[in-house]
């Protein structure tokens, strides 16, 4: 199963590398969102600085949506889905592979955005370890839930509008947790950042398990 996961992740990332959609589209999009927020909220530094964590994660979340859509658009090429079903790949492995590829892309995005935020919003990093842990946990959660709901809607033509509708409410707690934890890491939040990080980890583990369980069922005959 892990070998299958590695294979699928490798394939997705190789495609990504060849086509450069992630770098070419997702990252500029996310940076653009950050910039637009700066336009919308008066760059009276007060507001932007306080809202930094939230805006960062909203931008990441939207980019995550794109990543999920893209990941399943790959499989929408004629005959590919069927070939995948026919290939005998372990569905749980397939799920892990896809989620891993999405997670990798998101992590890279978050790194870039992190730099963007520090530069554009003059953020001040105080708890790098917490921030790192938060990013990891949140990303895995987003990738896992995204892959699960992505495949759920994947066969449908309305996929593009349905996935956000299904995925965003599910990811609301991730947004909540990641923002609170990041705020604590940036030194301007209340509450215990590590506890929120823990919540993110629970979410990530839960959705990974759920994804591995249900991916196979959802692939059948769709």
């Amino acid at each position: 199963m892990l070998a299958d996961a590695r294979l699928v992740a490798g394939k997705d990332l190789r495609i990504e590398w060849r086509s450069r959609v992630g770098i070419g589209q997702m990252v500029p999009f996310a940076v653009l969102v950050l910039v637009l927020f700066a336009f919308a909220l008066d760059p009276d530094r007060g507001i932007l600085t306080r809202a930094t964590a939230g805006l960062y994660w909203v931008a990441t979340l939207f980019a995550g949506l794109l990543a999920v859509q893209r990941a399943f658009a790959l499989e929408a090429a004629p005959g590919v889905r069927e070939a995948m079903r026919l290939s005998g790949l372990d569905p749980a492995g397939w799920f892990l592979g896809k989620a891993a590829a999405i997670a990798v892309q998101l992590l890279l995005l978050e790194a870039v955005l992190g730099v963007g935020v520090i530069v554009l919003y003059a953020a001040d990093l105080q708890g790098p370890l917490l921030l790192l842990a938060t990013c990891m946990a949140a990303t895995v959660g987003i990738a896992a839930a995204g892959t699960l709901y992505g495949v759920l809607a994947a066969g449908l033509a309305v996929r593009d509008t349905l996935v956000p509708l299904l995925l965003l409410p599910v990811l609301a707690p991730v947004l909540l947790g990641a923002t609170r934890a990041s705020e604590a890491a940036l030194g301007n939040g209340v509450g215990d950042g590590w506890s929120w990080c823990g919540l993110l980890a629970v979410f990530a583990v839960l959705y990974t398990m759920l994804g591995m369980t249900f991916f196979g069922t959802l692939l059948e005959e769709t």
Partner: protein
Amino acid sequence: MTTTPTETTPPAPPASSTSSPLTRVLGTLAGVGVVLVAWLGLVASPRDIVQKDSVRLIYVHVPAVTWMYVAVFLCAFASFMWLRKRTDGWDVLAASAAELAALLTGLGLITGMVWGRPTWGVYWVWDARLTSTAILFVLLLGYQALRRYPADPQSRSRMAAVLGLLLVPNAAIVHFSVDWWRGLHQDATVSKIDVSIEGLMLFTLAASFVVMGIVCAWLLVHRFRVGWLERRAERHHLDAALADRQADADPSAGVAVGGPSS
């Protein structure tokens, strides 16, 4: 298309309505119950000192929210059973329960907001209860959206079943995390009905729990039956299509309707 299915396969006479002795009893109880609770709630029970008449909304709001959770659990359970057994009944039950849940959620949100206006001065506050209910509402709307999409029915049932099953963990996570979040701001208590409930008010509340439960059951039974009949209609369609298909290449042969439609 040639002959209609009902002429060639005579099943039980087609139902002309979804009522039955059970639903008539339920319906009557519900009707009487609603009148009784309305009287109790609007007239007989006293006003609250602080909240005055708006406290009467809790007779609708609290039961609605409670039964909403029940409906969500029912949907998840039915989805789980469908994944195990793959029979139509569980699928229809899940769909009906989800619709009921969506209805109750909407009701809970609206009553919550209407109650909020005179109490807090605004229609919406970001307190734990309202926020997590709102997210649950969106989750349920997503479920409805998935159900409505005219995909291949078997796939649709499968996708909806997984989604339905996931409703419970999602709702739980949302509820828990939002509670925790708002707990930090000590707003959580605002949505708790702080009135000291006793006497007639308590009785009315209990009565309205029961009555709302009966109304929900009545709605659920009818909705389930409608869904069930829809499935039966699809089966007949299959038989007719099967017959047509066989006649496709062999027009001279008699039309033999295909095997058991289980």
